[in-house]
Structure formats: C-alpha cells, structure tokens
C-alpha cells in the first residue's frame, strides 16, 4: 500500500504490450496521409490551374500533355493518401481493440487475485462499470490519441506552411482567427463541462426516482401514491429540463464561434487576394481557401479530441485504481500443500473490516472445534456470525490473533489448498449461467453425473431437478433467475458438498427452505459425511439444537459455547430465542409469569 502508486498513464500504457507496433505505425501512416492530402491543393493551383491561368493571360493554348502529366501526379497523390489513410485505419483498429482487450484482461486477472476485502473496497456494481464502460471509454480515447493527436497538428502545420508559401500575408489572418477560435471554444468547453457535471447529478436523481418506482410499484399502488409520485417526478423532470436547456444553450455558442472564425477567414482571404489585384494569381485562391478550411478544421478536431480525452480521464482514473490495488491476501512464500484434518481453532482473534474503522467486528474470540464435530452458531443480525466463519478459509485475514485449521495457521497454507478443503455456502448465494449439472460441478469439475446426483439427493435438490423437463441439463439463467430461493440454496449446498471438504460451512443456507427439508438436509449431511467438520449458522434454533456445540455470538464476541441442554439452562440469549420460536401459548405464560 505504501509503495508509490504508478502514474495513471504508465499503468494504462502497460496494457499496450504486443500492440506497440500498430500503435506506432498508426500516427506514421497518418502523417503520410496528411502530407499527400495537403500536397494536392498546392499542386493543383500552382501546376494545373496555374498553367491554365498563365496560358490564358498569355493568350496561348495550354499544353495538354503538361496538364495530363500533372493530373496523373495529382491522382497518384490521392491514391497514396488513400493507401496511407486506410493503413492508418487498419493499424488504429488493431492497436485500439488490442489495447482494450489487454486492459480488460489485466483488470479481470487482477480481480481474480482480489481478496474479499479488496472486493468490499470497490462495490460490485462499480467494478462492473470499470470493466465495461470505463474500458470502452479508454479504448476509444486511445484510438483518438493515436489517430487525431498526430493528424490534427500535422495537418495544421503543413497547411500553414503551404498557405504561407503561396501568400505570406495570409499568415496574419490565421494569427487572428485561430486564437479567436481556440480561446472561444476552450471557454465554452470549460463552462459547459462545469455545468454538465452538476446536472448529471440531477439526471441521476431523476433516474433514481424511476428506478425506485419500478421496484416499489406495489408500495406506490398499495398506498395510492400515484399522483404524489407523478408530482415528484414532474418536478424532477422539469428541473432536469431547465438545467439541461441552460447548459446546452452555453454549448450552442460553439456554433457562432466556429462560423465567425470560418466566415471571417474566408472574407479576409478573399479581401486580401482582391487587394493584390492583378499581381495575384487567381489559381491560388482555391488552394488558399482549402488550406484555411483545413487549418480551422484541425483546431476544431483538436478541441473535440480534448473534450473526449478529459471525459476518458475519469474512466482512466477508475481503471487505474483497480490495477494499482494490491491484493490484501497473498500466498505465503513456502506454503503448506495439504490440510491434515478439519479441526479449527480461533486464538485471541480480533478483526475489523477496515484499518481505519474504530469498531472491531470480532474481538477476543477463542474457541476450539474438533475435526468431525457439528457446530451451530446463533446470534442476532450484526453479531458477526458470518465474519467469524469467513476467517476460516482465509477470505479475510485476522487483525489480531490467529486462526488454525488442521493445527496450522491458515496463513501458512497455499490458498487453493486451504479453500479446497473448506467448503462454504455463502449467505449471498450465486448461481452462474449454465446447466444445473455445470453449476453443481463447480465443486469438482471432473465429477460423474452419478456423483452429482448423489450430492443433489443429499441436499434435497434431486427431487425438484428431476421434475424439470430437462433435468440436470436445465439451463440456469443469469443470476439463477429461474429457480426459487429455496431451490437455489439447495443447489448451492449440493455444489459445496461435491467438494468433499474437510470443513463444511453453511452460512444461513437454508433460510428459504422449509423446516422439514432443512431437517432432512442436516440429517443426511450428518450421516453421510461424518468426518467433515460442519459449521451451521442459522436463525432457527431447530437447525442447530442437535449440534455438538452451539456458539452464541453477541456483538462480535462469543457469548457462550455449549450444548443445547447447557445453554437452555444457563444462557439468556439462547433461552429467549428458543422460547420465542418453539413455545406454545401456555409456555409463554409460564415463562413470563
């Protein structure tokens, strides 16, 4: 963390790699294209039209052969320009898409190395944006840079040189119109950007209202608040309209600025030429006009390019943040490659999610779990039950103290080895798009279909899978949208069971499953994998009451450890929860009375 962070540019350019050659060839070809392109008006007016004018003035007939030769040369110039331009286009496409690919890949690989803590630092939605929209923005900007950053200035310089070559005084006109254009556009851009940044927040708020309404339509309708929401939205939309109109009116100034620059230059050039009278070659007029247009165009291009670049900067910054983030959990130098057994020990463990937060999520946790035991964990929301178990597969590192698995500190294991031995069903469960079997095979990609079926039976998932028309080949949609919450939980348990873990952690994994199924699952786990240490976090007392030990968590501390009978006798939290869930009306009276 303390290491000086690499600059944004260097970090991003690090992803160019094998696409350096096309990245360099693009601007080179651009120079070729511009050079030939700029040569055309010059040759045209000095040779072709110039010859015509001379002949006209002298009253002789022009030399057709001469005209055809120079005409041929001009066509050759256009073809050369075309060739170089196309090459530049091809190289630019290769360079920019390749750069984008590498950038996306670097980000994705980086992300795979992230620890839970790293992931928490960025939110998932912001990570998605960084890998998609932001990369596209930077990729576009990169293409702009290698194409336009060179093209525009070269075009400008070459045009000025040719123009002054034809008529030196014309330079004076550019000296007036170009700064006017540049300063004018820059001012408009600065003002516009400043205003736009402000209104985008309003726009976000507007979209937020829509989103909340779509999501909460039941509430809106239930409370008959349609008109209230309409008024709210109408106000918000009116606010957005007013602000955007104002901002766009600022941008509208671009138009007269460009027109004034263009028209003034045209008028002045014509005026200048006319003032020279007969001394002036009329043939040169067209060349001067086209150079003037090119010079102004290249400035406009450059200013547009600048705006795009500033917009891409924000994206670049967000990408760099991810690329420069150091993973907080890495493999030890000389890792242990096997886990002895499923015993677990917490020694004076304290933990907080962020170094800066004052509150410890866990403090002074000491508990020993023997291999093969079934452990229940109970406690209210926010009592850090999930936090506790997440330390076991080293999803987070302890702030103080140590966690031992199989008698060894978790920090000494190879991460893959440790996590392969600890199967965990997370509270926030995710299935991936693919078939049911593919999803379950996350636990073991080589497992046979029989084995997949076996664990699904254990997890009570086989019955509903078999009822699907496609059985185990049923496609799971993105995010598991086509299975119910309870079915999802059972599939996730099956997936974890397939790992044949030494330690199995179920973090509130049966909350959407009915009590009967819940009991069945616990029973089959107990009977079929007796040697595996089982840790069950639950809200129902019934889910944990037959465990070997029950850990009561309260406010980040272990409040008590004991069996059902012991806790029912001595522990007030346990009693409270137990009676609230199981007592009959009579029992209520007894306890309260």
């Amino acid at each position, binding site marked *: 963390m303390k290491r000086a962070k690499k600059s944004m540019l260097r970090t991003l350019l690090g992803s160019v790699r094998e696409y350096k050659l096309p990245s360099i060839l693009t601007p080179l070809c651009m120079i070729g294209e511009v050079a030939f392109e700029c040569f055309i008006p010059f040759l045209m007016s000095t040779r072709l039209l110039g010859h015509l004018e001379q002949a006209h003035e002298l009253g002789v007939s022009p030399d057709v052969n001469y005209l055809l030769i120079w005409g041929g040369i001009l066509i050759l110039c256009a073809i050369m320009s075309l060739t170089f331009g196309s090459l530049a286009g091809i190289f630019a496409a290769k360079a920019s898409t390749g750069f984008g*690919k590498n950038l996306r890949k670097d980000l994705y690989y980086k992300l795979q190395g992230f620890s839970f803590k790293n992931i928490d630092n960025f939110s998932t939605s912001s990570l998605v944006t960084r890998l998609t929209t932001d990369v596209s923005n930077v990729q576009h900007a990169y293409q702009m840079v290698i194409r336009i950053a060179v093209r525009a200035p070269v075009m400008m310089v070459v045009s000025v040189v040719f123009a002054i070559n034809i008529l030196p005084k014309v330079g004076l006109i550019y000296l007036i119109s170009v700064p006017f254009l540049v300063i004018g556009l820059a001012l408009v851009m600065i003002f516009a950007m400043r205003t736009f940044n402000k209104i985008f927040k309003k726009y976000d708020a507007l979209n937020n209202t829509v989103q909340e309404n779509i999501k909460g339509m039941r509430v809106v309708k239930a409370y008959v608040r349609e008109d209230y929401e309409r008024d709210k939205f109408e106000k918000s939309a009116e606010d957005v309209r007013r602000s955007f109109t104002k901002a766009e*009116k600022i941008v509208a100034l671009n138009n007269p600025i460009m027109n004034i620059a263009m028209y003034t230059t045209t008028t002045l050039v014509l005026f200048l030429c006319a003032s020279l009278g007969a001394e002036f070659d009329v043939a040169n007029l067209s060349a001067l006009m086209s150079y003037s247009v090119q010079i102004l165009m290249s400035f406009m291009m450059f200013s547009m390019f600048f705006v795009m670049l500033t917009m891409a900067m924000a994206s670049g910054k967000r990408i760099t943040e991810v690329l420069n983030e150091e993973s907080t959990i890495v493999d030890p130098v000389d890792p242990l490659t096997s886990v002895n057994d499923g015993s677990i020990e917490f020694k004076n463990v304290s933990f907080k999610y962020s170094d800066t937060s004052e509150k410890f999520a866990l403090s002074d946790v000491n508990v020993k779990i023997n291999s093969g035991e079934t452990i229940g964990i109970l406690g209210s929301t926010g009592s850090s039950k999930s936090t506790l178990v997440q330390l076991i597969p080293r999803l987070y590192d302890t702030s103080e103290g140590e966690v031992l698995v199989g008698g060894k500190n978790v920090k000494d294991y190879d991460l893959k080895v440790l996590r392969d031995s600890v199967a965990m069903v997370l509270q926030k469960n995710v299935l991936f798009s693919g078939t049911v079997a593919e999803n379950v095979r996350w636990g073991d990609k080589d497992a046979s279909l029989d084995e997949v079926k076996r664990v699904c039976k254990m997890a009570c998932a086989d019955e509903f899978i078999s009822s699907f028309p496609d059985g185990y080949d049923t496609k799971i949609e993105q995010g598991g949208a086509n299975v119910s919450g309870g079915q999802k939980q059972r599939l996730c348990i099956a997936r974890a069971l397939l790992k044949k873990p030494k330690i199995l952690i179920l973090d509130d994994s049966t909350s959407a499953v009915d009590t009967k199924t819940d009991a069945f699952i616990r029973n089959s786990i107990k009977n079929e994998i007796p040697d595996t240490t089982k840790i069950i976090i639950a809200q129902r007392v019934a889910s944990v009451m037959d465990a070997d030990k029950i850990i009561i968590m309260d406010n980040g501390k272990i409040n008590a450890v004991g069996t059902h009978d012991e806790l029912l006798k001595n522990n007030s939290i346990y009693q409270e929860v137990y009676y609230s869930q199981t007592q*009959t009306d009579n029992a209520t009276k007894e306890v309260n009375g």
Partner: protein
Amino acid sequence: MAGPMGPKRYGGKNTAKKGTFTRLLKLLFKNYKFKLLLMVICILVAAIGGSASSVFLKEVADVIQAGDWTGFLKIIAFMIIIYASATLAGFFQTRLGATITQGFIKDVRVKLFDKMQTLPIKYFDTHTHGDVMSVYTNDTDALRQLVSQSLPQIFSTILTLTFLVSIMLFYSIWLTLIVFVCVILMFFVTKKIGGNSAKYFIKQQKSLGKTEGFIEESINGQKVIKVFTHEKESKKDFDALNDEYCENSTKANIFANIMGPVMNNLGHLLYVIIAICGTLLVVFNVRNVSISGSVIGLSVIISFLPMSKQFTQSINQIAQQLNAIYMGLAGADRVFTLIDEESETDNGYVTLVHAKYDEKGNLTESDVRTGLWAWKHPHKADGTVTYTPLKGDIVMEEVDFSYVPEKLVLKDVSLHALPGQKIAFVGATGAGKTTITNLINRFYDIADGKIRYDGININKIKKSDLRRSLGIVLQDTNLFTGTVMDNIRYGKLDATDEECINAAKLANAHDFIERLPEGYNTVLTGDGANLSQGQRQLISIARAAVADAPVMIMDEATSSIDTRTELLVQKGTDRLMEGRTVFIIAHRLSTVRNADVITVLDHGQIIERGTHQELLDKKGSYYQLYTGAFELD
C-alpha cells in the same frame, strides 16, 4: 452523452414500426409548432450561408481577373450580410434546438412516468425492471439524439445539397454531370464497405454483450469464485470471450476506420478529376451548357472544387445519420410501446368517505376528517346513496385465480375474516399465500368467485379507495430516497411530524431512529442501504402505522430478520395489529402462532384451518410443519 447500453439490449432488434416517424413528428409539432417553424427558417438561412462560399469564390475570382474594385466591394458587402445572417441563424437554431429537445424529452419522460403509474402490477411482474428502466435511459436517449441532432442535421444537409446542385447547374451542367457520376461511384463503394461494416458491427455488438454479461455475472459471483477457487477456470472462460470480442471488434473497427479516409480521398480524387476535366473543357473550348449561360473559365473550376468536396461530405453525413435515425426510431418505438400499454381499469364507483352520525343516528358523509369512515354506495337503479361503515370484514367466496390461463394458482378458496381478526396463511413457497393478498387489494382480479369487503363486492369499490383502506407491509421494504420522516409520512401525506413520530413509537422504530446521525431527518438512499434489514422493516411498519388502515396485510414482513430482531419488530407489529383485521403471511411458524385463524395452503387450496391449538390437536399438515423442527429428536 450516450449512456452505456445495458448488455441485455444488444440482442434487441433495432427496427421500428411503420408510423413511428409520423407519430413522432406529430408529437413534436403539437407542442412546438412556432419554435419548429422558426428553427426551420434558421436552418434554411444557415444552409444558404454554408453553400454560398463557392459562389463568392467564383464572383471574387471574376472581379479580381477583371480588376473591378467596386464590384468587389459590392460582393464583399453582400458576403458579410449573408455570413452574418447565417451565423445568427446557426446560433438561434442550436438554442431553439436545445429548448425544443429538452422540452420534448421532458414531455416524453413525464408521459412515460404518468403511464407507468397507471399500469397494473401484472406489467411489473412480467417485465424485468432493467427493461423498463432502459426505456427511460437508453431509448429516451436515442430519441433525444434523434430530435436534437439527426433530424435537424439531415434536414440541413438535404437543403445544402439542393442549394449546391442548383449552384452547380447554374454554372455548368457538364461539370455537374461529372460530379454526379463520381458520387454514384462513391455511393457504391461506401455501400460495399458499409455493408461489411454493418455485418461485423452486429457481430461485435453480440460478442460485446456476451463479454459484458459474463463480466457482470462473474463480478457478482466473485466471492463464490474465491470460495470455490475457481479463478483459473474463470480466467480461461473470460479469455475466450475477450479474444473473440477483440477479433470481431477489430474487423468492425477496420471497416469503420477505413470509411473515413476512403470517402475523404475519393473526394480528393473527384477534386482532381474536376480540375482536369475542367481544364480540358477549357482547352478544347467545349461549349458550356448552364443556367447562367456563363462560359467555363478558371473561376468556375475554382468554385467547383470546394463544392464537389462539400457535396461528397454531405452525402457522407446523410449515410452516417441514417444509422442514428434508425436507432432513434427504434428507441421511439419502445417508448411508444410503453405509452400504449393498457392501463389498469377501474370501474369501481363505491368510494370511501369521512363519515359522521347525524342527529337521527344515521351515518352520513362529513366534510372533515372524523376518524370515522364509510363506504358511499350510490345505487344506479333508484339514485339513492347508502353509507356502510368501514369495519374491515372480508369474505372470500369460492375464489379461483390464475396468472396464466389454465394454470390455476388458487382453487375454490373461501374464508371469512371478521373485523379485528388475525388470519394467517402458511404453506410452502408457491402455495398461493401472496396471491391471496394480491387479490384483496386488486393488484390482480379474480377469475371466479367473489370477494366482499364489508359486504360490498370489491369489484364495485374504486381501486384507490379500496387500497387506501388496506395497510400493507411487504418483505421488500422499498423505502424511497428522502428523510426517515418523509418515508414514514408516505403512509399519510398530511400527517404531522408528531403523528409520524407516534407511528414510529408504535412500530418500535423511534429508539433507533433517534440514534441515527440526523434522527428523523437522516436521508435514506438506495432503499435505505445505510440501515439494517430490521431497521428498514421497522420504518416500513411505521409507514403502515401512520396510514392507520382498518385492514392490514403483512406479507413475510419479518422473514429475513433474525428471531431476536424479530422480537423487537414483533412488538411493533403486535401493537399495530390491535383492533384491525390482519392478514399475515409467514414462513416462520412462530410468527403466526397467535393468529385467530391459521389457514394452511397447499397448491392453491386451503387444506386446513383453525387456531394454533386446534391444528396441533388435529395432527395434520400444520402439525407436521410445526413439529418438523423436532423431527431429529
């Protein structure tokens, strides 16, 4: 400022129905007749300025050659007038454009939102939130682009082209013909390249959609990937998609990138050809045919050069805008589709009114809030009006219901909830518990049977009044951006702060709200993301409490809260339920134990009903469900 397209949209068809364009124009003209007319004039003037340069060039070249100084000054004066008006016109055009576009887009947004508020719940159950949202963001944005840029630009380009052709014909038909021949040639070249480009762009969009979809999914499941040490496999899958995307996108980009230089240099070629042909025409003294009757000379050739360039650029611009117009129309189509959705129908005529007893002890309507409510029931037959006091007596008679035809979700459901009774529904997921409540508040209409509220068929009750008489607490709390106070007040908009605080106290929410950094003025965002699930639920209970409806529906209100927090919430709900008819849906049996009637639902049918004790004694399904917890003993 095109917003990022959601990955799901990539596959969507970008075709527009016939008539969309006319409808769009009609909509635009309806509100902005005058401004549009003004804008058309501005575009016209600006286009004249844009195409006049070549004329000036020719005229100036002529006067220079002739050495006519006064003629030159005349031209310059004329030029300044034309340019100044073109500049002004351009300025006003963009300003008008901004006003019209933003106003129009606001109209569209408000129309969409107004419509959305009238749509039945069914619409939201059958459309993903992302798709609906996308109409507001992507489609509206495409529409904005269409109105603000594509349409005016294409109009202006067509005008410019017309002017250019006129000028060209005015000077020389021969040279005009040469320009035409070359342009037709260019047209075929671009069509060839453009066709290829389009093919690869579709491929690129498809694989972009796939890649981004994959990224989204795997980032959302990143923690699972870690737990299953699936990083290597995930990298491999990603690489395959990423490489494929890169390949397609390189091809698409190559075509797109080549298009520019090709058009540009074909323009140069045309430029050269015009010059050569022009000079040859002069050399061989070919008789010029033109409207002006002028002979081909240097000045004519000079003026044709920039015109030919402008001509090709204009054609190019139209080609580019066509795609944007297409996308815009497709967006407009989706916007119109939503606006055309069928609204929720409401034929109810029985309304809920404030009531009082007059001197004779009869119930009548009152102008002020009396705390007493009555159903006002006008009888069409004899024109009389009867008032029935609002009590909260709900009867369901042999109700059948299905979301999709032929698949009955509820079969023959009958029940009677007396005022003040608590009715609980238990049963497995999909047994039809939530459906019953969806029917009571008429989010959905029943297929067969009757539901009566205080003896009145609910089909006769105005939906808004029916719903106002029902309080509802859902599992998804759905809080809105705003302060805690605003969120509680949502239940009754004219509630005083004191009423809201009392409601919070009733719901057991007061204590924790007081402890929030800004108390009742704490701003909640993102559905109350800064609160715990339990706290959010307490606020939604307070919201229902302030509404003070005689009938309450609690749909899994406490299911995602742990039992200890639930105890807290329970105390709040217990107080809230006092004296009201309550429908409770719960997963957890401990929540429903105290209900007056517990109904056990299975596959849409009530299979058992009774009190907790009765059902336990019966040793049926409820008993099995309830004791399932003890099975292992």
